[in-house]
């Protein structure tokens, strides 16, 4: 870049001077600063790998919460099979083992011109300057019409208090009552996730609440992931307790009476688990980075996950709009591509021209068995997009107890690979 020094000073303003200068103009002793917003699977992984691979880079990770609760395995918390502590992931290892600066605060806005993020910490507001910014805030919801209140009808699609709310409502169900759930319009976080929840709840009802039923209202025309395994589960394993209805458009929700009005009739349940339609995390919208044709996600260059609008702002995980599945495994995978590209850019190099990314999801089908789904992607230089490698895309031939065992090993390893 040939921007002359004077222009740079005027552009950057005085306060963020040292960080706005290109590396060649900066004192050798000042390391570049990467600011990461969101300490979930994308954000934790990119922070860790920047430190692991990057040498002298300053990395600050900001999350609104003191620790992250993984959605991965969270359906098993809902049914009481595992405790909340099993999905609680702290930031202590990133701090002490990797040297990441950990800050608890809420990012409110991004100024791409001055390269600063406004963060609310307690009751104070701070401007955090960056050389590179990575946003991995996950999803936010498009709430349904009506008197919708997620405290009364929990989605449990972000883990934490929502997971416990749903767990408690499920546990409080009486025999012969009905659990009603909705499946959002694709694309949404974790394609197999809602079907996995339906199976976990159906299994629980069969074992614990005799005569109870589950009604699954899908906004989509068909099962969106693992059609064989979930199809078999719905039509065979759970045929006595589960009713699956596709093509359901939600008209309105009344959370107080746990009633949902849809294109296929009105339903009322003892538990109403509405999983609303989804969009990029709010901070991505606040930063003005939502620019895909649907108006929900951020377009990025999949060689670096840099925004197509601002080259120094990267968007990872569920919020980005490359069309790759929105999974934790995928967020971790993209984070490594992003970390590698950021490190290369600091030494003046172009990103790796042929990255590979992967997704893997393990889904409990019964309390003893699990299936899996996997897909990998290669960069296609012609379309400049990540393209699924078809021979790498498959669901498990059938749910097995081995699958259940592998699920827990995979969770342990991906939790550690992302958070420690």
């Amino acid at each position, binding site marked *: 870049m040939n921007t002359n020094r004077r222009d740079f000073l005027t552009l950057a303003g005085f306060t963020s001077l040292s960080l706005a200068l290109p590396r060649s103009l900066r004192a050798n002793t000042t390391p570049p600063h990467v600011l990461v917003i969101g300490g979930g699977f994308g954000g934790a992984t990119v922070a860790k790998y920047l430190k692991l691979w990057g040498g002298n880079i300053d990395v600050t990770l900001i999350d609104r919460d003191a620790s992250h609760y993984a959605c991965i395995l969270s359906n098993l918390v809902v049914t009481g099979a595992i405790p909340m502590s099993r999905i609680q992931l702290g930031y202590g290892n990133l701090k002490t083992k990797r040297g990441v600066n950990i800050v608890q605060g809420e990012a409110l806005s991004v100024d791409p011109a001055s390269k600063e993020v*406004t963060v609310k910490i307690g009751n104070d507001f701070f401007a955090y300057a960056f050389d590179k910014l990575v946003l991995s805030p996950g999803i936010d919801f498009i709430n349904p019409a009506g008197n919708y209140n997620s405290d009364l009808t929990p989605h449990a699609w972000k883990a934490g208090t929502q997971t416990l709310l749903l767990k408690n409502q499920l546990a409080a169900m009486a025999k012969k009552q009905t659990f009603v759930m909705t499946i959002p319009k694709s694309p949404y976080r974790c394609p197999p996730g809602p079907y996995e929840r339906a199976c976990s709840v159906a299994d629980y009802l069969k074992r614990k609440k005799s005569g109870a039923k589950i009604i699954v209202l899908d906004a989509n025309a068909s099962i969106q992931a693992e059609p064989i395994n979930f199809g078999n589960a719905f039509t065979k394993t759970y045929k006595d307790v589960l009713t699956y209805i596709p093509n359901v458009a939600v008209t309105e929700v009344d959370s107080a009476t746990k009633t949902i009005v849809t294109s296929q009739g009105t339903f009322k349940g003892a538990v109403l688990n509405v999983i609303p339609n989804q969009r990029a995390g709010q901070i991505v919208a606040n930063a003005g980075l939502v620019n895909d044709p649907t108006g929900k996600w951020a377009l990025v260059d999949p060689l670096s996950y840099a925004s197509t609008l601002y080259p120094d702002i990267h968007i990872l995980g569920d919020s980005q709009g490359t069309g790759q599945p929105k999974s934790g495994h995928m967020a971790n995978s993209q984070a490594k591509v992003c970390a590698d590209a950021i490190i290369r850019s600091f030494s003046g190099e172009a990103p790796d021209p042929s990255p590979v990314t992967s997704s893997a999801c393990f889904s409990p089908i019964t309390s003893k068995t699990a299936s899996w789904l996997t897909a990998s992607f*290669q960069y296609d230089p012609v379309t400049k997009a990540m393209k699924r*490698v078809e021979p*790498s895309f498959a669901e498990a031939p059938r749910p097995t107890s081995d699958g259940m065992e592998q699920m827990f090993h995979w969770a342990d390893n991906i939790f550690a690979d992302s958070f420690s």
Partner: protein
Amino acid sequence: MQPSSKPHVPSTLKRAATPRTILALSAVCACNPLPAAPPAGQLLSSQCFQCHGTNGQPVSGFEGIGGENANEMYKELLEMSLRKPEGIMDLQIRAYTPAQLRLIANYLSTLPKTSESDDD
């Protein structure tokens, strides 16, 4: 394209006391070199670490994959990518070209060996 909505900036904004302190501190101990260009195969291999652990050292279950002989590893990976898929591993490995499997096998061989993989 311009951002569609003006970001909300609170009126009581403080000029980043915290991060500047952090930066000043780390500047003092800036004894490491600038980030170097990453070694070949490092990024590709890291896509195995979600299951096989960071640097091929798992914390649970699956085999360690660090520090194996590069040629044997390459043969094994190629074999898994060609045989009738038996499990999730055989699908994962189909993502890569033979040239990429070569890079992965070479890079993994430079990593420390894990105790689990010592056994075989």
